[in-house]
């Protein structure tokens, strides 16, 4: 068992600075589902939207409670996009457009 002090230094969610101690506290209080830990601690609500921290948090839930972790939806966009970029998009973009947003890697054309 890691000591309480060091548990406060283990980061589970880097975007929102949620520590192992925070996650365990949430589970102890009964907010033990992934959706509940997200709402109680803010885990997974930053730039990565859970893509880095969700599996780690799920493993803590599985190890310390009787809850079977069910993933929450990693919200779009894939990476943060400036409103100014989106504002120029209506003319070119629609729901079927697959052009990647600025700053993302272009998907190679399949021949």
């Amino acid at each position, binding site marked *: 068992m890691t000591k309480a002090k060091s548990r406060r230094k283990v980061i589970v969610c880097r975007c929102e600075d949620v520590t192992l*101690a925070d996650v365990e*506290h949430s589970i*102890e*209080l*009964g907010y033990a*589902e992934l*959706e*509940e830990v997200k*709402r109680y601690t*803010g885990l997974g*609500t*930053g*730039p990565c*939207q859970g893509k880095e921290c969700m599996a780690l948090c799920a493993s803590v839930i599985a190890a310390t409670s009787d809850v079977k972790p069910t993933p929450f*939806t990693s*919200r*779009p*966009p894939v990476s*943060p*996009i*400036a*409103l*100014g*970029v*989106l*504002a120029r*998009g*209506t003319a070119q*973009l*629609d*729901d079927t*457009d697959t052009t990647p947003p600025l700053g993302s890697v272009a998907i190679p054309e399949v021949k």
Partner: protein
Amino acid sequence: VSTPAPPRPTKDAPKRECEVAIIGGGIMGLGIAYECAKRGLDDIVVLERGYMAEGASGRNGGGVRMQWSTKTNIQLMLRSIEICRSFASEMGINVWLRQGGYLFLARDASERPAMEANIALQNKLGVPTRLLTPSEARAIVPELDVERFDCAAYNPRDGVLFPWPFLWGYANRAIELGVELHLHTAVTAIEPAEDGGYHLTTSKGTVRAERIVNAAGAWSPEVARLVGLELPNRPHRHEILSTEPLKPFLKPMVSVLSTGLYFSQSMRGEIVCGINLPDDDDGTVKMGSRLLFLTRLAEELVALAPRLGGVKVLRQWAGPYDITPDHAPIIGEAPGLEGFYLACGFMGHGFMMAPIIARLYGELLTGGKRAKIFDRWKLDRFAEGGLEVESMILG
């Protein structure tokens, strides 16, 4: 850490018999459960199909306002905000209420007469709304482009709160008072019992209840169909987004009446915003996110407040509005179904209305005062005609 563990929902099967079964563990269902239990009616089972706050109660922008166009809504929201103000001390939980006001913008002069009439009515009822010129509005929100609107209505007492702890507060206190809350428990069938009351079949066993409250929000037509009742409300997808957190700079919730655009800054510093968009409204609940929403919202928002163009969107999601033909809720006992109560059709404003509606419902179900609103917003009105339409509907 010394925070005491809050009371939690039970994982056991629901008790076999109860006085009231409430279907829907959102703000409306939990609020009604708490207000009944507080008045001594604690033989209640709340049945929630998903996790707590899975529906609209956990997906809304948290706005609470007194600015409405009908006397009924203004008076109800005055009382609702009063309850919000004392909620933290009564329930022992911080709901992060911040009364920074609501600033409604009228796009052009044609909207001004209606805005003036609404302000006059609000003032008469004790709401301190003022009509502002664009430059006066800009003194409150310097980021606004004054060329984009004709005038504004500002009530400094409207505000924004954080929805999730509000639900936890109601749930925790209701459970303490004896209410059973069951999450992940779907109601799959309802049969009227021969000697009165109802038999409910759930995914965790059967429950016999003397009375039922349908507080399932956008899912309430589905629930009503289980007893053969057809409701006129329909779900409508409403999308919303949050940006990266910024230092606090934005005091009020800003909203454009004609497009339904709104944006405010949460206590976490994120700009939370949405806009009205058409959808196919085919009767099913849809919660998928669309690129069209991002581009459409960004176009309107950046035109109105150009400096926000550099702010990045972190996440978008959707929640279901519960829309009625006359833009007013449906509450009270369903005609022809004794003991089957409705608390639905709140038009995307269920969260802000729940504190007062739950209180009035608590009085009704415990044999206390029957508020006039139960006549005005009864289901029969759609058959009887003579509807009063609220015009200030948005997020």
